[in-house]
């Protein structure tokens, strides 16, 4: 495995080091200065996540108000580096209980150092699973071995956990009520031309699970995806049901999924970790059901007036509804006065992002809603630069709807003791970058 990092730095937005850890001594000490002068103070900060300066590669990303910078001098695996950062942030979040920002770092110096020591050795990523790490990097006080009180809980064998076959699950868990929660979360990315042609469209989906199951259960998940259904019909030697099947691209699984079984039987079977985890991720590019259609007309009437007309149509089932719909309609910088008429929701001009922001709290399916606005522009001194017309952006959440059409066919739980489980399934579709040119 290639090296992922020689050193890792956590910087605030001003470029001051909050915390850093050097894993290999092939990078010098003034790396932060180089980053500050060559990256932070240039315009490339936002759009170029990897830069090489003087033989060192800087791989960085911004998370809330912290820059995480990985410095590598050898030929490193950059994807591995980014993955490491993402996983590390998730780990920190699970330790801090939510937020990861400058203040959280300042409040948890010792813990972070401890974690940084553990999650990477000599530049090679190690176990980043919070489940395991929480076993031996604890936030509670350590009891003195000479204390008179007897131990009320056996100390789990950490070594076994790290090296064991089912490293992600502790043994001996028991719950009174055995429950499984399954969420399918999809986000739709869309770029549509002003004439309504789809230029780019895909869905990225995640299957999230939350397990409260006793013992060492074996789970099996069936989806209406194409490969799984075909395999199944082949094995049961009967024709596939004539339902809609979904072709999933780029599927990735959590490490708990038994890949040999997946390869031979095309079924997703696994022993789940305890608590919340991401079972699988996938992408779909074909046959996407767009939840909304947007029909914009924007007319520039002379130098100082504009007319904006946006019609939004919901095309999902009439019984469903979308929540938190926000339509951001860009307007020129010199917008001075706006006049709205909306059929539903509320609209407002937000000068700091140069957009008309139209918010609709609840948007039922198979309906449509329009906004018409008159905009007055102020005359400027500079020569008239023609307006670039950025795309309209949209945000929404549609519960119980999947843009891909994916459905859970079954979720079977099998355990030695044979207890009953309750399974909960939820679907939700969100907007990724949902953009319509105007």
């Amino acid at each position, binding site marked *: 495995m290639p090296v992922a990092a020689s050193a890792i730095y956590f910087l605030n937005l*001003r470029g001051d080091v909050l915390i850093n850890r050097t894993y290999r001594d092939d990078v010098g000490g003034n790396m932060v200065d180089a980053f500050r002068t060559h990256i932070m103070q240039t315009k490339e900060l936002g759009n170029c996540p990897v830069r090489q300066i003087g033989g060192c590669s800087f791989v960085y990303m911004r998370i809330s*108000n912290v820059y995480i910078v990985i410095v590598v001098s050898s030929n490193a695996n950059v994807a591995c580096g980014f993955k490491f950062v993402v996983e590390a942030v998730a780990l920190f979040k699970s330790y801090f209980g939510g937020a990861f920002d400058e203040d959280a770092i300042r409040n948890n110096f010792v813990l972070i150092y401890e974690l940084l020591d553990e999650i990477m050795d000599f530049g090679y990523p190690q176990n980043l699973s919070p489940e395991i790490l929480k076993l031996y990097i604890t936030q509670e006080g350590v009891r003195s071995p000479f204390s008179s009180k007897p131990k009320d809980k056996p100390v789990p064998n950490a070594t076994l956990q790290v090296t064991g076959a089912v490293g992600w699950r502790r043994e001996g868990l028991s719950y009174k009520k055995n429950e499984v929660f399954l969420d399918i979360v999809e986000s739709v990315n869309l770029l549509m031309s002003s004439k309504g042609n789809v230029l780019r469209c895909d869905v990225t989906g995640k299957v999230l699970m939350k397990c409260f199951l006793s013992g060492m259960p074996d789970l099996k998940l069936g989806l209406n995806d194409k490969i799984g259904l075909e395999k199944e019909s082949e094995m049961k030697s009967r024709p596939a049901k004539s339902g809609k099947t979904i072709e999933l691209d780029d599927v990735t699984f959590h490490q708990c999924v038994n890949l040999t079984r997946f390869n031979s039987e095309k079924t997703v079977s696994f022993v789940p970790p305890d608590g919340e985890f991401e079972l699988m991720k996938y992408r779909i590019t074909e046959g996407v059901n767009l939840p909304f259609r947007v029909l914009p007309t924007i007319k520039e009437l002379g130098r100082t007036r504009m007319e904006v007309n946006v019609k939004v149509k919901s095309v999902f089932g009439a019984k469903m509804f979308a929540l938190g719909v926000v339509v951001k309609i860009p307007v020129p910088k*010199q917008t001075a006065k706006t006049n709205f008429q909306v059929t539903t929701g509320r609209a407002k001009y*937000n000068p700091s*992002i140069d957009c008309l922001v139209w918010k609709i709290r609840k948007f039922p399916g198979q309906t449509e809603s329009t906004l018409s606005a008159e905009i007055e522009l*102020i005359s*400027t001194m500079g020569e008239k630069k023609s307006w670039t017309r950025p795309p309209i952006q949209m945000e929404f959440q549609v519960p119980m709807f999947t843009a891909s059409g994916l459905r859970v066919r079954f979720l079977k739980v099998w355990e030695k003791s044979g207890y009953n489980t309750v399974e909960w399934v939820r679907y939700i579709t969100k907007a990724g970058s949902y953009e319509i040119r105007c």
Partner: protein
Amino acid sequence: MTGMRGLSVFISDIRNCQNKEAERLRVDKELGNIRTCFKNEKVLTPYKKKKYVWKMLYIHMLGYDVDFGHMEAVSLISAPKYPEKQVGYIVTSCLLNENHDFLRLAINTVRNDIIGRNETFQCLALTLVGNIGGRDFAESLAPDVQKLLISSSCRPLVRKKAALCLLRLFRKNPDAINADGWADRMAQLLDERDLGVLTSSTSLLVSLVSNNHEAYSSCLPKCVKILERLARNQDVPQEYTYYGIPSPWLQVKAMRALQYFPTIEDPSTRKSLFEVLQRILMGTDVVKNVNKNNASHAVLFEALSLVMHLDAEKEMMSQCVALLGKFISVREPNIRYLGLENMTRMLMVTDVQDIIKKHQSQIITSLKDPDISIRRRALDLLYGMCDVSNAKDIVEELLQYLSTAEFSMREELSLKAAILAEKFAPDLSWYVDVILQLIDKAGDFVSDDIWFRVVQFVTNNEDLQPYAASKAREYLDKTAIHETMVKVSAYILGEYGHLLARQPGCSASELFNILHEKLPRVSTPTIPILLSTYAKLLMHAQPPDPELEKKIWAVFKKYESCIDVEIQQRAVEYFELSKKGAAFMDVLAEMPKFPERQSSLIKKAEEVEDTADQSAIKLRAQQQPSNALVLADPQPVSGAPPPLKVPSVSGSTQNPESVARSLPQPNGTPSPDLLSDLLGPLAIEASPGDVSTEQHGPIGAEGVPEEVGGSAIVPVEEQTNTVEVIGNIAERFHALCLKDSGVLYEDPYIQIGIKAEWRGHQGRLVLFLGNKNTSPLTSVQTLILPPAHLRLELSPVPDTIPPRAQVQSPLEVMNIRPSRDVAVLDFSYMFGTKLVSAKLRIPATLNKFLQPIQLTSEEFFPQWRSLSGPPLKLQEVVRGVRPLALPEMATLFNSFRVTICPGLDPNPNNLVASSTFYSESTGAMICLARIETDPADRTQLRLTVGSGDPTLTFELKEFIKEQLITIPMGSRALVPAPTPAPPVAQPLSPAALADDPGALLAGLL
């Protein structure tokens, strides 16, 4: 500002922002707010307007682009209340500049404030105008501001501002102040008692006087009076005294103003001024306090320049120098720098050298100062103060310093040392010593010019030759010597090594051995010199030494196949020559003496001289240096000389005239100028000796008719009759329209050739003015009358052209827009007492800015179709065309760079052509043309021209038409100059001339 809560909240919001992004969001939000408010005129109260305009200013100061709301800011100027008016003025002067049209709207309001009674408003208005007032302001406000300045009812505060405001207006538009009316007023103003007003008025005066000193001569005594008052410290209020010096600013300004007047006639004024200056010179000293030093020295140095300007008595000058001498011995580097610099300036003006020489040792110490700028000044000063008496010391000092000086200074240092050695050498052997030392110590920084010069001196002075040879021999004994040293010693030993033959270790073979040791380590340019030296050594070896001969032949053999052409040719030629016996001796005879030339070093130094510091004195002292190069006798390079006779042919690519020059050798040796190509760069100005002796002979001796001797100015028409023009000017012009070099004008005395290079919309022409006679041409004057569409820059031509010399004068041409108009060169000279002048059209015609381009049919037709009709595409049936066969017509078109694209038009009787036109306004633009001929009637054709620019299309069409029409001379009445081109002296029959461009060219040759 009280009560503007919104503003203070906004500012504190901005200050509380954690990062730039948050600040930007806040600013954008506020800008949105302001836009909404400005648009809602109903609710926009003056208070709100004021508040928002302040916010805009704050945002602008934070660096954000505020491109609206200027109208509101300008409108606040007319508000009646002070707080609003103030913000209006402030924001307007921050956000707008003089080029904004908006400001015109404000002129009237500003004027009302200026002529109003409220002096606060007056001050605001004057400040605005003083900061951003442009031409419009100058035109409409100057009289009012003048009135304010001289008004007795105004407070000094207002008048101060008025003076500075008027200064700005004057700078923007010098016509704003009428000198006749204003001079007296200005003089009255200088009687002012208030020092503030006086300071401002003097600033104004400095500017006025620099423009026109005659009109303000009445102010001169007043300035002296002011100086007297300040020097005596009479009536100077405490607040105008700075560290005990009465208003140093006013003193400096008054003295600066005085420097713009040529002299002071009035003896009493002069006397009192000198008293004042004396007092300043006496009273200034170096003290501890830096601020006081700065102020007093500013006054002192201004006084020094005034003293220099006025050519004061020697006594005062020596006093100045003494003072400066004190300065250069001070430890403080700034003061030392100023002292050295001013000493250098003093050198330029007067004969204070002897006094400055007293400080020589101190200056030499400054040469070792840690501060490089001080060292440079010291070097300049040493260079300037050097003369025969102290040259030896100074040059030796410089040589000594050379080995320790840092690299950035070495080149200048070595050049200066070389020049001084040459200029002031007490004896030539010393000069040779110095230069050889120089090469030894700083070989890398010794340019070729320096050693060329040594060679010239040695060649021209027989006494020097043995000495130089023995010196060169001595240097060769050193183990590591610089390549330049190898070059110079090889050359000298080759020429004069035989003079040392009797000395031990200096026989030909020994010299060869020691030189040959150096050969492996030298670079390619040096090897040819060594080869020549070997040949010379071989030739001089008396008695002939067969062993040496063998060795040298081996070397020649070795280089016979060298990759470098120069080396190879020399090796081959010398090898062959050396077998020829007598011819060998002949060819390799001793170099003839060089003609006397101006030192190229001095020329070079003149170029190096920095002209940054432009004091009033320096401006006066500076002469206009002529850029034109005076070239050697312009013998035509007709054919290559026989290769064996002149082995330097191979060098002819470097310098053609050097070959030509070698032909008329004064001492009549066949052509032994072996190294003339090497020394070519030195040949800046050469006039053969025999000619220069005749130069002073009677002018009439040449048999020049002196018919027009009496009349100085003769109309052009007559002129051309009296001086017989050789060839036809118009014809020559037309030929030059089609080619890039040739003769523009010729008469018995002068020949003007022209050579042009064209690149895009720019061109560079070189005029070659060649004096054909043996006596100089004087009062040579050239003047360009450019048409509107060309920008021309002619380098000055020297006043005199020496006999048989050629002067080059570069002329830069820039094409701004398409036009057929032609530039005219108004040219005149005196030959003896006869004035000759001619007006010549310069062949910078439309077609010179064309660039041939060959288009294929796929490229041509879409372009052709996209140009739809007039004015982009013009068609005309042209009649009276001189009959031309199609191929001839195609040649004609190609000759003016409109390329015929064969095969594009299906009809064989038609021609299709294309070209690219370059000008500043159009950029590169494709032009297309189509000519449809009638095979039955060759005198008419249909011409269609198209391009992306209507003017270009029209002009090009007309141009082509002119080229095609039969009577080219008569129809060309398009010279823009008031007098048309000189009439044709020997008109050729137009038909013969027009037949084909080839004939035109042939006629010239």
